[in-house]
């Protein structure tokens, strides 16, 4: 009890009500492991409002600096607090054209939320969840608003790839008045957002909504268009009249471990496994024609977001035992914290400090087990993480029916190898003068996202798309950038 005297002592110092970081309601793990519906439900109006109060509106907000696309974070949170959610959406959309997507898949704990001042003493403000709330509210309640469009320039730009980098770039270029065509190799646009990230983490309707929005702004989408085959980059420039080309074809090359038994039946790249399930909707087989085998015991190799997506897909397809096999320890797993937590809640079995050495098959060529070796952490390596070292004589087998390799993605050589004069590094990544301009070695050709950086995140690719759009505009209109 405080005495009346004490209360009078500091009446002017506003006492903030202590509001805890608002939890986001999620589907019950026991239920969700048997469906593909989205796991978190998103904030309610009330929890969003409470969470917005937690933001202290810093004069010098670190969160903006830590955001790859520099969203005015305190600005939009203030609008949530004031109850003007559509205005909050406008503020976000100035810097991020895909908020419903980023609110769901950005690694906020490594970006904006990591530097949040509130987070120094308490849990940081849930910026990602608020972003998602605003985007979903806008999708439900907002009307289509034509953004400010520059007068038509008559200049044609080709965007190769319709993933986050390509979509972001196309969205900026169309607003700058250019004619934009997006060329997609698959039959649906969205790139990794549709073939890689599962429905339970990013509903495909949300991606389609963003694509539809760009189409309304006038972006032309060409599907089934494999640049390098049906048309080369040179064709686009010399024959089809495109004055600039943005290569955003992503990290579409599966990486295998090169261990014995990888071509046995039941060994998949994460790309194949996820593409079957997500893009081709094989989880709805036989309503959809593409098959996926519903294995009972599945091991996924790797510790990143793709590995989490694959292992949780295996579980939803009916696995009794779904394992993550990772050669380092829990702390080094590159996956988002939330994904790891969700996986743990769902009963994924983590086999840490374990490295596969071969896949074992039965007499008919089907996977029967995976042989692994135990690892221990040694000295830090070039990535700063402690290097895993095998423990001699610790080999053991895990009985499984299927293996999914989720140990990273390389750069697909299809575009680069068909484009003379385009320089790539030894990993096949396109070399650009800086990630801000994305200017490649070939005149008029820009690149950004995973094809430049190697496999990274949605938001980084999006940021690159935006930056390069500005550079392309400089090149086309002001000739401020040239070769």
């Amino acid at each position: 009890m405080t005495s009346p005297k004490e209360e009078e002592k500091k009446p002017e110092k506003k006492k903030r009500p202590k509001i805890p970081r608002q939890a986001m309601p999620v589907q019950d793990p026991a239920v969700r492991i048997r469906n593909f519906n989205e796991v978190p439900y998103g904030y309610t109006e009330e929890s969003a409002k409470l969470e917005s109060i937690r933001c202290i509106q810093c004069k010098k907000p670190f969160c903006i600096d830590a955001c790859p696309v520099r969203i005015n974070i305190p600005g939009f949170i203030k609008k949530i607090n004031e109850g003007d959610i559509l205005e909050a959406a406008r503020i976000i959309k100035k810097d991020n054209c895909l908020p419903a997507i980023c609110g769901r898949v950005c690694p906020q704990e490594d970006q904006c939320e990591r530097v949040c001042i509130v987070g120094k003493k308490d849990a940081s403000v849930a910026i990602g969840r608020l972003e998602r709330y605003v985007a979903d509210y806008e999708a439900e309640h907002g009307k289509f608003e034509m953004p400010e469009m520059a007068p038509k320039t008559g200049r044609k730009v080709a965007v190769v790839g319709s993933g986050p980098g390509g979509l972001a770039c196309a969205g900026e270029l169309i607003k700058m008045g250019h004619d934009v065509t997006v060329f997609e190799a698959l039959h649906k646009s969205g790139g990794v957002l549709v073939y890689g990230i599962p429905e339970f983490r990013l509903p495909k309707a949300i991606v389609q909504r963003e694509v539809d929005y760009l189409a309304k702004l006038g972006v032309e989408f060409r599907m089934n268009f494999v640049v390098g085959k049906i048309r080369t980059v040179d064709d686009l420039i010399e024959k089809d009249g495109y004055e600039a080309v943005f290569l955003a074809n992503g990290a579409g090359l599966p990486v295998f471990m090169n261990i014995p038994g990888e071509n046995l039946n039941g060994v998949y790249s994460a790309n194949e496994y996820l593409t079957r399930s997500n893009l081709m909707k094989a989880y709805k087989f036989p309503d959809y024609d593409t098959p996926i085998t519903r294995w009972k015991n599945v091991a996924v190799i790797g510790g990143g977001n793709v590995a989490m997506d694959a292992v949780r897909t295996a579980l939803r397809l009916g696995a009794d035992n779904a394992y993550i096999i990772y050669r380092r320890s829990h702390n080094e797993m590159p996956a988002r914290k939330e994904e790891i937590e969700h996986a743990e809640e769902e009963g994924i079995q983590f086999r840490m400090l374990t490295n596969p050495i071969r896949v074992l098959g039965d007499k008919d060529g089907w996977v029967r087990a995976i042989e692994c070796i135990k690892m221990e952490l040694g000295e830090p390596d070039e990535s700063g993480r402690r290097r895993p070292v095998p423990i001699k004589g610790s080999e053991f087998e895990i009985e499984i029916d299927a293996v999914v390799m989720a140990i990273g993605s390389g750069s697909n050589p299809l575009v680069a190898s068909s484009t003379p004069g385009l320089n790539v590094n030894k990993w096949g990544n396109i070399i650009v003068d800086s990630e801000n301009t994305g200017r490649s070695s070939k005149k008029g050709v820009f690149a950004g996202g995973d094809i430049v950086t190697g496999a990274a995140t949605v938001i980084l690719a999006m940021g690159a798309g935006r930056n390069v759009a500005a550079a392309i505009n400089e090149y086309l209109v002001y000739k401020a950038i040239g070769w």
Partner: protein
Amino acid sequence: MYEIAEKKVWSDEVPGVKEFKIKAPLIAEKHQAGQFVILRIDENGERIPLTIAHKDLRNGTINLLFQEVGKTTMDLGRLKKGDSIMDISGPLGTPTHVERYGTVVCIGGGIGVAPLHPIAQAMKGAGNNVISIIGVKTKNILIYEDLMNATSDELLITTDDGSYGHHGFVTDELKSLIDGERKIPIDLVVAIGPPIMMKMVCRVTEPYKIKTVVSLNTIMIDGTGMCGACRVSVDGKTRFVCVDGPEFDGHQVDFDEMMQRQRQYLKEEKIAVETCQRQCSR
């Protein structure tokens, strides 16, 4: 959407063999011998690879020939002239390496004759002496006899049941070319057909060190090297049929592994066909 401009039924017996002429001018423009497309019939469809049998540049069309062996090809077979296919992606894969070798023997088994045709044409165009061998189970499912006749200096036909041409297998005719009375020096063999046929052809040519190119048809999804479903072992290394192939040095291909990998979805394929038949009979 890609419109079916013409439909030809080669065989209505089970499994049926059908051919579409499809309007796809951009694909026709870029297509080279040996390349294929991936198609998806409709929103619920799967993506399947089919090799381009021939093209008509002036009319901007490509021809696709298929046998109704699974759910998707059965669905495809029910489409009529004027219907459309939702997605066609291509031309995919590395084109056939064509040069003047000398004498080239082109061997086609079953509907493998269709993808063989543009290759024989290209080989002939490059000034080669082209001897073609076509093998089918029985006369009724023989396709492209006229076309192959027109592009070959010599055409030999075999049937498993003796209903037409030589009674036997393509390998018999190949052996007699190499080692029979004529002892023809062969510079290159191109073989397309069922995996077991290609394997046997390679077994015949290997002792004579005759370079033998085979064209593989494996499980694929994207066809751009992204998924790795199509991987095969060639000379002990893992290669992707969709981008590194579809053609490889047959003497280096691990056919047994390839045939084992082709069996991965037999169970699901059966379910798909049964479900389809139940729904169609309703």
